[in-house]
């Protein structure tokens, strides 16, 4: 009975603490959002630049002279993404192979003994 009671008490405490933490979190979050929203207006009003793009507009034709200098940049970006990803995957594969080889040799040694 007593043990039951203490257990319940403990459980209640845990729930209470969790609820308290959640409440504090919500409070802080709303405070933060309020603060950032009020300052956001200020930052927006302050800005001098209006060249920021809000959406991309598609066109059908492209000037020939515009196409030439952009191509190497585009190709470089794609090539880099490819190379980076494959180098990373290859490094995982190599590290894994080494660890598994070591595991296998250890297993052999322990069974030999």
């Amino acid at each position: 009975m007593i043990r039951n009671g203490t257990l319940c008490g403990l459980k209640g405490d845990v729930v209470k603490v969790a609820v308290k933490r959640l409440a504090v979190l919500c409070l802080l979050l709303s405070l933060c959002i309020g603060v950032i929203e009020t300052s956001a207006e200020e930052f927006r009003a302050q800005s001098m630049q209006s060249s920021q793009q809000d959406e991309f507009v598609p066109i059908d034709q492209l000037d020939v002279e515009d196409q030439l200098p952009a191509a190497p940049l585009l190709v470089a970006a794609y090539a880099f993404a490819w190379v980076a990803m494959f180098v990373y995957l290859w490094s995982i594969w190599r590290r894994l192979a080494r660890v598994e080889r070591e595991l296998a040799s250890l297993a052999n040694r322990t069974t030999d003994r």
Partner: protein
Amino acid sequence: MRRFFTVALLIMRKDLRVETRSRELFLTTLFFSVSTVLVFAFGFVRDGRPVENAVAGILWIAIAFAGTLALGRTFERERYHDVLRALLLAPVDRPAIYVGKLLGILALLAAVEVVIVPLVALLFQAPLFRQPILTFLLLSLGTLGFSAVGTLFGAMLVRARSRDVLLPVLLYPITIPVIIAGVRGIAVLLQPEVDVAMARAWIGMLVFFDVVFITLSLWTFEPVMTE
């Protein structure tokens, strides 16, 4: 709740008492930040006049460097005498220990800033005291955010290897939002025409990051410090 603050104040008083007896940290940190200001003065002064807008950056970099040094040294002292372990063994709230250490660091940095801020204002002819309340708020909130993260990392790195390098490596990227807000806020105050609304916006950002950093630190201090 009262017990929490009693413990925190007790730890802060312990740190301050150690410090007032030796004055080691205060004097070394102060001298270090003055030398930082001098180094930057050589870098940013052309023909006897400082480069425009450099003063805010110089001030904050001096504070951040001095803060890192003070944090590293404080926790090195704790480690040397195993004080932190003893504190963690005490039957008190862990977050209270964190708050106590944070208050101690803040007091130390405040003492350094009391000297360094007028010095920078004097050396660079910067009108830092035209808006004393805004300057105070920017400096105190920025220092609070920086030390909140710094105290947590300093405390947890006590157990780590190569801690003296890792502290700035971890601390600077994470506190950059605070430093940006501090630098830009002070820079606004140094303009010929002070834009009070803009300075308030930067203070709002500092409050935001202070709240996030302190909450996260209070939550993570306990699990991070348990071995």
